[in-house]
């Protein structure tokens, strides 16, 4: 392949060299089972413990509140299903939002089939949960509020400290899916009254297939996987030691570089947004202009369809996405873009570009130039654009 510009860091990231180096010895050198008694096993156990300590520290949590999982989706599933089960005697009502990741939404839908009631909160046109609506949705039988820290498609950052406080005041458990936010923006579980938090390794230059669930001490969450003493008996199975080591190394690196990365990426992001909006007519930015993740830009180009745009960008070596990567296999437009009020045809024409630590301004210049050409080309083929041009011609006459 010739040139490759990777602007899909919200889908996944490249494993950083530091992370890879940290992981490598744990495949064939220190391969012992952490549960084994001999020194080889102890070496693995030590590495797992060290990762747990790092993760706890990044969140202002305790080391025994971190539970390793097979990724963000598993952590979301676990948090919601287990909380629903554990607190069923108190009630069967859950509050979440319409713009959650499918790992949360589909889990809630599954629980609805099991007799739980779920309120899906609306968001405003920027994609932010309305606190008044949240307060109104709370009932005596509400047992869980699950609101994402930042949205994966449009990057909007939710008012998590306020939501956490509302949950705490009402004695309701609060879970947040922080898969996109963790490692990008500062998160302190105590300041935000977070009881459970999901995160994933591969969004922060760590490996895929590993994540964690933070569970505040005292929260009655039962075992998710039975069969062993790992993860305080709550998630059995021999630990993914290299993955856990990689996750720890990635989190450490992310915490150390967060401020500087965020500053750099925010500047680049704003540059990209400004050029796209200025140079391509009928383009809108989805999400909030400033309350968004430093690396996220999401556009809708009127009169064109997203998949065509993605394939043509790929031909030019540019990797982007339309909605979330998980959505692109289906035909429906993104539920997030519909929730912020976009009409279907505009939601179909969306493009998410998510920058990374290695993204350069020059890469963004190239991307803007290519996007400009492709959008123009697709519009010249679009009957919607044809109708629009004819209509505005008529209006002028």
């Amino acid at each position, binding site marked *: 392949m010739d040139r490759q510009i990777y602007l899909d860091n919200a889908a996944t990231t490249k494993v950083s060299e530091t992370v890879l180096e940290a992981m490598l010895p744990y495949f064939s050198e220190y391969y012992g089972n952490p549960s084994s008694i001999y020194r080889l096993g102890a070496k693995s156990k030590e590495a797992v413990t060290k990762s747990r300590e790092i993760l706890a520290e990044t969140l202002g949590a305790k080391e025994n509140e971190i539970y390793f999982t097979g990724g963000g989706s598993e952590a979301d599933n676990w948090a919601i299903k287990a909380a629903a089960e554990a607190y069923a005697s108190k009630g069967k009502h859950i509050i979440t939002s319409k713009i959650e990741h499918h790992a949360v939404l589909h889990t809630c839908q599954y629980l609805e089939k099991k007799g739980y009631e779920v309120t899906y909160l609306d968001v405003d046109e920027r994609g932010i949960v309305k606190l008044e609506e949240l307060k109104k949705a709370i009932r005596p039988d509400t047992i869980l509020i699950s609101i994402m820290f930042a949205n994966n498609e449009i990057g909007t950052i939710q008012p998590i400290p306020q939501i956490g406080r509302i949950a705490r005041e009402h004695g309701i458990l609060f879970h947040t899916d922080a898969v996109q936010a963790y490692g990008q923006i500062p998160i302190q579980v105590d300041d935000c009254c977070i009881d459970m938090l999901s995160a994933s390794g591969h969004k922060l230059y760590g490996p895929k297939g590993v994540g964690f669930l933070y569970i505040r001490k005292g929260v009655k969450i039962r075992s998710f996987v039975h069969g062993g003493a790992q993860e305080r008996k709550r998630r059995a199975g021999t630990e993914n030691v290299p993955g856990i080591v990689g996750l720890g190394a990635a989190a450490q690196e992310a915490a150390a570089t967060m401020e500087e990365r965020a500053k750099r990426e925010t500047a680049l992001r704003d540059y990209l947004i400004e050029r796209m909006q200025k140079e391509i007519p009928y383009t809108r930015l989805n999400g909030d202009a400033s309350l968004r993740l430093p690396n996220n830009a999401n556009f809708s180009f009127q*009169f064109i369809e997203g998949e*065509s745009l993605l394939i043509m960008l790929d031909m030019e070596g540019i990797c982007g996405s339309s909605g979330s990567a998980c959505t692109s*296999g*289906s*035909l429906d437009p993104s539920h997030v873009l519909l929730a912020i009020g976009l*009409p*279907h045809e505009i939601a179909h024409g969306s493009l998410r570009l998510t920058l990374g630590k290695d993204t350069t301004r020059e890469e963004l210049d190239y991307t803007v130039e290519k996007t400009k050409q492709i959008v123009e080309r697709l519009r*010249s*083929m679009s009957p919607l654009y044809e109708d629009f041009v004819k209509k505005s011609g008529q209006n002028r006459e």
Partner: protein
Amino acid sequence: MYSEKVMDHFQNPRNVGEIENASGVGTVGNAKCGDIMRIYLDIDETGVIRDVKFKTFGCGAAVATSSMATELVKGKTVQEAMEVTNKAVMEALDGLPPVKVHCSLLAEEAIHAALWDYAQKNGIQIEGLSKPKSDIHEGEEDEEEEY
């Protein structure tokens, strides 16, 4: 996910454009589903399709099926064009992923809609052709149709 032929027709679509004073124009699909196809036909007095153009809003498969459908009907008689089915379009493209099969149906419908428009304008009947079901302007005001 797409065959080489689909990619070729997507990247180098044949017969993109409009025909002024076309013999028949058909638009099918709707923006809600993310696919709209419009086909323009230029049909001579002997009933042969002399020229055909298309415009499509949609995914790669939608563009490719439109392009292939226009190739398949060009130079054909109206009756022959009726035999260009979605299956024929799909086969000519070396297949489509299952989720994209509806695009080929849309291409067939777009041809039929354009032929229907031609038949209406000329007060003729085409064997096997009935009024197209998909109309993107359904429910919208249509200024031209004042009765």
